[in-house]
């Protein structure tokens, strides 16, 4: 089994998948500048720790795990802010969109993560399973549950 990743492999991954990483983290954090900083830091960490990549899974999944860990750290630090408030980007979203967004953000973390990885990164169920550290079936169940929950939210809004 191979050990370690080459710097150029990480660079290729960065150049080809930067957008997917950035969009997912922006959705998680609600702020593009912070998300950019997270993605840059996460790849820097991956570069430093590339010798730890065991090669028993996809390099992209390994990097995704690093990116998500850095994003979680950042979320925790943002949550601790006292007097300052980080803005979400202006979206021009309608009120219904705002409600749906709140519902999305209120999903359990794993469901939300699975939705984001599926939508923004276009990862397969297997890739999501490897990234999040769950079984294939759990990914499908999480996506179904998330969709059901959001569909219910939409229906409630329509009938309200």
């Amino acid at each position: 089994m191979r050990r370690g990743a080459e710097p150029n492999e990480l660079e290729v991954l960065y150049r080809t998948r930067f957008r997917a990483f950035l969009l997912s983290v922006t959705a998680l954090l609600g702020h593009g500048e912070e998300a950019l900083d997270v993605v840059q830091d996460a790849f820097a960490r991956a570069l430093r720790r590339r010798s730890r990549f065991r090669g028993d899974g996809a390099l992209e999944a390994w990097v995704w795990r690093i990116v998500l860990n850095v994003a979680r750290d950042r979320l925790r630090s943002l949550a601790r802010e006292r007097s300052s408030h980080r803005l979400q980007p202006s979206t021009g979203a309608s009120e219904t969109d705002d409600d749906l967004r709140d519902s999305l953000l209120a999903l359990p973390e794993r469901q939300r993560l699975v939705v984001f990885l599926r939508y923004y990164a276009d990862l397969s169920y297997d890739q999501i399973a490897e990234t999040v550290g769950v079984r294939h079936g759990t990914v499908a169940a999480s996506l179904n549950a998330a969709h059901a929950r959001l569909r219910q939210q939409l229906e409630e809004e329509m009938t309200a």
Partner: protein
Amino acid sequence: MKELDSTLDALAAGAPVGAADWNDVVRRARRPRRVALTVTAASVFAASILLATPALGIAERLRAVFDGTPVQQRDLPARDLHVASAMVHGASPRIPDTGAAASGFGAATEIRELASRNGRNYFVIENRHGARCFAVGPVEKRDYVFGQVGCQRSPVFPSPELPIFDFSVLGGFDAIPHMRRLEGFAADGVATVALVLEDGGIVAETRVEHNVYSRTSDLPDGAVREIVALDANGGRIYSLCLVRGGCEK
């Protein structure tokens, strides 16, 4: 679920997708091994220590009138105006975004640009009762103007108790962080703002101009213990400790 797709698109709308920079990744990787963390220094590690505002009249000078170029509200994205107006009126920025005008806050809010430096714009936001907030955002055109808004009311900024209001970005998950970007607002009596390293050395001395300090280059790679505000004679007026658990040993 088209609504879901459009909502997901909106959630990531602020992503700077054109900002990919592998060289920046490499530079960050060469820094000391630390996990990334961004905080405002005024928040997480804010164990601030007022060192001295002695009988030299300095205390009186640690206030400020923030002159700047008025920003027309029509030039601001609605969401920015809503959040800034709500915050300066002490309301939650998370109240429904019905628009600052509808809430009545907009008309009572004045926003001025104090300075533009190192690719960043610095703003003061005031309401007619004198309450103030401050904001920082990128000069580069994005769909938002304010990247961060902060209001400091206890102790109030500017005052002898709080002569700087720091918006710096720190990195490092260790007990002592390192500095990514040094920036913030300073009272009139503050001539420079600098960083104190672990060994006590003072570096990255940055001049205050138009009540703003800003430095994005020549920052130390290593750990930073404090941000200090200095008067025109180099005397230390104030210290903001960045060390988790405090700077006193």
